[in-house]
């Protein structure tokens, strides 16, 4: 919907719109696109001209594992975020506004809290001697502490928590636009609760799911802080690999190559989403 409005504006007042966009475009070009291009250039220029960095990167099973792990983590986080976020979004959409405002404020507040502080908080909760393990052991439910951190479990928990608002907000928006009368009609026609959900609500909210999923998946692909703190070294993600090349090994050629691979994958996914899940195309 929003996309249609913007395209309309571009058609009618193209010149004026471009003018308004100029400062933002300049800022992005100067401080984002140019430096990124400069880093990417290094991937084919350092240590010598050629594709040796890409060969080393794509030819190594270790680095391929990092790529696979990046997709695995992003995929798992996306899935869990949607499963956890969907009911929340649904509830928010049908709640009286007085209450939904409060719940929304809580969600947004958590988004505004410093990322590092939130991640360290998870560390304190999840570690072997942390609150969760101590409680479970105190209750006699487990004998040895569960491995909740420095592995995929820790990364998934920490990242899902951070990504939830990005699923909940677009989903809530989409669910709110669904006419409740449709669900009532389905029920009147004899659909059970599960059928109402699976065959009416879910298909109608698909654009919201797609938007939220893409957002979370793409953000997760490039995530750094949370996997670095809550993951183990064997769950390394691409962004960590880039940082390692750039900061520790001071090998900017390889760093640039890894960054380009990440960028290409992200853009490709975005293109797929635009092609198949663009909500504006359906209207």
């Amino acid at each position: 919907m929003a996309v249609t409005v913007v395209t309309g504006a571009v058609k009618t007042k193209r010149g004026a719109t471009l003018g308004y966009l100029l400062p933002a475009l300049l800022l992005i070009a100067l401080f984002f696109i140019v430096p990124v291009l400069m880093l990417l250039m290094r991937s084919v220029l350092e240590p010598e001209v050629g594709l040796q960095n890409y060969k080393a990167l794509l030819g190594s099973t270790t680095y391929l594992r990092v790529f696979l792990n990046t997709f695995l983590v992003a995929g798992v986080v996306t899935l869990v975020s949607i499963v956890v976020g969907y009911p929340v979004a649904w509830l928010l959409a049908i709640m009286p506004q007085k209450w939904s405002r409060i719940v929304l404020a809580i969600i947004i507040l958590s988004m505004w809290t410093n990322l590092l502080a939130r991640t360290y908080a998870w560390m304190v909760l999840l570690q072997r001697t942390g609150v969760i393990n101590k409680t479970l052991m105190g209750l006699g439910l487990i004998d040895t502490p569960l491995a909740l951190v420095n592995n995929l479990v820790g990364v998934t928990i920490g990242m899902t928590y951070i990504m939830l608002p990005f699923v909940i907000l677009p989903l809530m928006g989409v669910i709110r636009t669904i006419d409740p009368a449709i669900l009532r009609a389905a029920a009147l026609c004899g659909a059970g609760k599960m059928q109402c959900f699976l065959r009416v609500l879910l298909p109608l909210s698909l654009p919201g799911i797609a938007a939220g999923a893409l957002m979370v998946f793409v953000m997760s692909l490039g995530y750094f802080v949370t996997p670095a703190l809550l993951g183990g070294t064997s769950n390394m993600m691409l962004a960590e690999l880039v940082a390692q090349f750039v900061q520790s090994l001071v090998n900017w050629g390889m760093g640039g190559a890894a960054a380009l691979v990440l960028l290409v994958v992200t853009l490709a996914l975005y293109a797929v989403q635009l092609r198949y899940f663009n909500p504006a195309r359906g209207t």
Partner: protein
Amino acid sequence: MKSRLALALLSTTLLFAGHAAAEDMVFTSWGGTTQDAQKTYWADPFTAEKNVAVTQDGPTDYGKIKAMVEAGNVTWDVVDVEGDYAVQAGNAGLLEKLDFSVIDKSKLDPRFVTDYSVGSFYYSFVIGCNKDAVEACPKTWADLFDTQKFPGKRTFYKWSAPGVVEAALLADGVPADKLYPLDLDRAFKKLDTIKGDIVWWDSGAQSQQLLASAEAPFGSFWNGRLTALAETGVTVETSWTNNITAADSLVVPKGAKNRDAAMKFIAQATSDAAQAQFAAATGYAPVNLDSNTLMDAELRKSLPDMQADTQINADMSYWAEHRDEIGTRWYAWQAK
């Protein structure tokens, strides 16, 4: 539009220029209790005596140093770096030559002096253990690699640097005088045997947190971090058996804006008194050979330079030469 943009850009530049002129020099280190001590015992007296304000920045980042030097906009004047990096970066043209007419190198530990760097302080990797959390503490590197005798998580330094590879080889029975050149295949094979039981620490503060919370009740630590932790009331046992020494170095990135102040700062920081005070506060050893006479004899016993019986000096020139090769293998092994 164009002129307005130019004006905006100009004012931004002026803003940054003004910012740079207001501070007399910048000292960058690794943060935490170590940098606090560097500020208190090196920077603050320097400011008082020489009237040069010292801005603290951090943490040290080798990628940033390279970026600053390449861009010709170096905002760090003196940086505390690892010894092997100092040698390598000096050779790679990233550092200023030090002015030894200002810095008196005749008093400095020659092991850590190059054309481009002097020692900052020196430390040992030792075996630390939280005595309250376990029945028995590992005493040797072989103990620390023995998951049968000492079950549980153990913590090691995450980054590729002198220390862990040496520890693995010693644990595997390589004699101390046969460590170099490092047998990496053998080291990684030994490390494989405990990989699932390792929790990595990536900063000194994290190593303290892991040990204090008994998340990892033992491991390999910088000795000074254990001293600091013991002072907070944690029952720490330190084993100095085959402690592995390495040094941090002070360097000046090439093109530093306040080169003269930087040289004077290094002269002050490596002076006998400043080194003695820093050592007393942190538990790291001084690099100034005259500092020992200024220190309490009792206190000196707890410093790395008094633990020489079974001490192993990590070979900085070997590391400088093989830094990239070892690093690439190290991180690839970690990611496996």
